[in-house]
């Protein structure tokens, strides 16, 4: 009897084990199965510039899935991109867009790098300033010159000269810029604060001294308790390059073998702005800015900051914010009277091994010509013939009207130097400048500490 009970019990455990094993295997296999096809976006009417439809006989590379990977689309851009994709599929019936929009600013280049190593890059994908050259050097990108030259809708001499270096490597184009903007482009200001202080609003001709004087007058504090900061600005490589370049300094020497961040023009430029945080104490430091909300929408709606040196992407939040009486002018000129901006750009590149090159090029080109996201992300178009489309309901309020003319001037916009090394180099400089920004050392000390590390990195590249 005992034996029977035991054998029954043993069998039942085996059965249970089998069941567990089978269940686990089934679950694992189910998890590994390819997903069902995602729902297609609905097709609605095309917008933007009229485009030539595909030729009737379907060309090679114009049938199949076109993998499109996008970095950093804002939520308001997404429906516009979906509509563009749907319209594209209507124009090119053989092509099915497989879109992938990553969460904003999260690991895009980590993913791209991994895909590049595995030779599984998407057909067409977002690239940024400073990334085109290292990816081209690694053979990940397809040169676009033959596609540009043979295209009847894009003329090479129509491309703005200012963007050509940003999309080129060793004389060839590896990306097609769909838009660019200076950074930091604007000095946003609270109109009410200026009126209360009896100050004239800023103009595009303001210099850094004008900003400092206004900040001193706009700042409101009672003892240690700050009721309103005069100014805020981000402490990151875009801002400090704008400061250094505008003041006549540079990050590297001409052949990019040595850094020049210890030279007076560079040090004085950054020190001028950091003094407003640590010496004048009228500009908010990064931590306090984050605690105030960390976004334009909050600081302006809350009336806690009178001026902010900001970027074009701040516009989206500002527009959605109630109760902020704001306007903006172009960011100020340095005290020597010049203004040199960092060039933010968005561009498309095509994977070196894409089997869908014609479709990928058509996608990139149509995106440039149609400007589907311009209503929410105001990029300056890359083609002279499209410059008249750089208009919008907020342009006057933002002072963007003069931008096309200004950026056409040589030397007003720059991309970072040192190619693929810049990411690391800016990190070396930033680590030191963070200490200066929080008043733990002077800018001169910070630059002196960072410079040998930067030189070492530059030497390693050579």
């Amino acid at each position, binding site marked *: 009897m005992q034996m029977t009970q035991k054998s029954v019990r043993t069998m039942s455990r085996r059965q249970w*084990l089998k069941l567990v094993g089978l269940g*686990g295997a089934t*679950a*694992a296999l189910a*998890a*590994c*199965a*390819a*997903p*069902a096809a*995602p729902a297609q976006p609905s097709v609605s009417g095309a917008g933007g510039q009229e485009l030539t439809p595909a030729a009737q006989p379907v060309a090679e590379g114009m049938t199949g899935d076109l993998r499109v990977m996008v970095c*950093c*689309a*804002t*939520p308001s851009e997404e429906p516009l991109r979906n509509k563009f994709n749907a319209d594209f599929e209507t124009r090119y019936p053989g092509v099915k867009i*497989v879109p*992938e*929009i*990553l*969460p*904003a*600013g*999260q*690991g895009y280049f*980590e*993913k791209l*790098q*991994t*895909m590049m*190593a*595995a*030779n*599984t890059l998407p057909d067409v994908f977002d690239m940024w300033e400073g990334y085109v050259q290292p990816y081209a050097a690694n053979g990940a990108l397809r040169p676009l010159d033959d596609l540009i030259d043979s295209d009847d809708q894009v003329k090479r001499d129509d491309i703005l000269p200012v963007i050509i270096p940003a999309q080129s490597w060793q004389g060839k184009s590896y990306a097609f810029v769909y838009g660019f903007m200076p950074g930091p482009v604007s000095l946003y200001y609270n109109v009410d604060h200026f009126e209360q202080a009896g100050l004239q609003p800023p103009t595009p001709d303001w210099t850094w001294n004008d900003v400092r004087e206004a900040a001193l007058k706009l700042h409101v504090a009672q003892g240690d308790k700050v009721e309103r900061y005069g100014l805020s600005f981000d402490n990151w490589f875009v801002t400090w390059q704008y400061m250094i370049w505008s003041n006549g300094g540079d990050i590297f020497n001409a052949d990019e073998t040595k850094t020049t961040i210890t030279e007076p023009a560079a040090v004085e430029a950054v020190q001028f702005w950091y003094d407003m945080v640590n010496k004048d104490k009228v500009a908010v430091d990064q931590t*306090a800015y984050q*605690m*105030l*909300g*960390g*976004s*334009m*929408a*909050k*600081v302006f*709606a*809350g009336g*806690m900051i009178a001026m902010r040196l900001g*970027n074009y*992407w*701040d516009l*989206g*939040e500002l527009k959605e*914010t*109630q109760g902020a009486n704001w306007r903006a002018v172009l960011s100020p000129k340095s005290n020597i009277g010049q203004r040199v901006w960092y060039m933010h750009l968005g561009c498309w590149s095509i994977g070196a091994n894409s089997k869908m090159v014609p479709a990928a090029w058509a996608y990139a080109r149509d995106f440039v010509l149609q400007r589907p996201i311009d209503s929410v992300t105001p990029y300056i178009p890359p083609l002279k013939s499209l410059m008249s489309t750089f208009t919008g309901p907020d342009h006057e309020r933002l002072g963007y009207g003069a931008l096309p003319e200004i950026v056409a001037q040589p030397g007003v916009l720059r991309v970072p130097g040192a190619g693929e090394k810049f990411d690391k180099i800016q990190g070396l400089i930033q680590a030191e400048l963070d200490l200066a920004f929080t008043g733990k050392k002077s800018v001169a000390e910070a630059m002196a500490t960072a410079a040998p590390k930067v030189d070492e990195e530059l030497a390693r590249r050579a």
Partner: protein
Amino acid sequence: MGAITFRRHSAQWYARRTARALVVYGLLIGLGAIFILPFLWSLTSSLRETGAPLGFPPQFLPTQFNWRNYVRVFEMIPFATFFRNSVIVTTIAVFGELLSASLVAFGFARLRFPGRNLLFILLLSTMMIPYPVTMIPSFILWVRGLGMANTFGPLVLPPFFGPAFSIFLLRQFFMTINTELDEAAKIDGASEFRIYWQIILPLAKPALATIAIFSFMANWNDFLTPLIYLSDRNLYTLALGINFLRNMRGGGELALQMAGAVMFIAPCIILYFLAQRFVIQGIVTTGLKG
């Protein structure tokens, strides 16, 4: 048989003991409060009105209770889909890790075979290899070799191949179990598998619970692996998908981000409280900490 005598302590001794206890508990409560502050801040921020400034100094106790933020998270992103995907991935991965790690650890702890120590050292040495080093070769293997791009495969199958840390932890625990139990079972005719299954595993519940918690947290919080393997948003896990609450350059509505973050970490907290007893027991027994 002499009577047991108890030493009477002086009032001063009791006063000293009370004072010492007060200091110790005070310190522990203080440290505990410091550790909980970031979570309290997240919770408080998640209940603020959207668009309202956070203010400085930071507020740790809520004064507004805007529960609508939690509903808005569901409206803004497919939270339920992301949550479901995270549950699927984490459940399978934890199951695989427990199964494989316990089997391998049993082999290292209980079976004698040539090269056992060498193999164990080799296994331990794999713990020194950082994930970024193996990330690209693994990606090539899973995507190009096995064609598992955009599936849960690369997320759930690796734990079935015995993660080194879990094997190490379980082996240490298994070695503390008296071998006489195995010998007695062998005399009764039990196979090695039966010893593993019916004797060792039931005794190793604290260590298994510890592994389960660690594995759960690692898989639940993993951002990079889903990022590089998954393309279809319907397959995104919560750790990845929750980032859609952020705008470009990290902006966005902080109250909603915090509401999403609170819901994201809630399962970890609940699981920890449910298995707290086992975890502490497991950590104490194995001499390891997370």
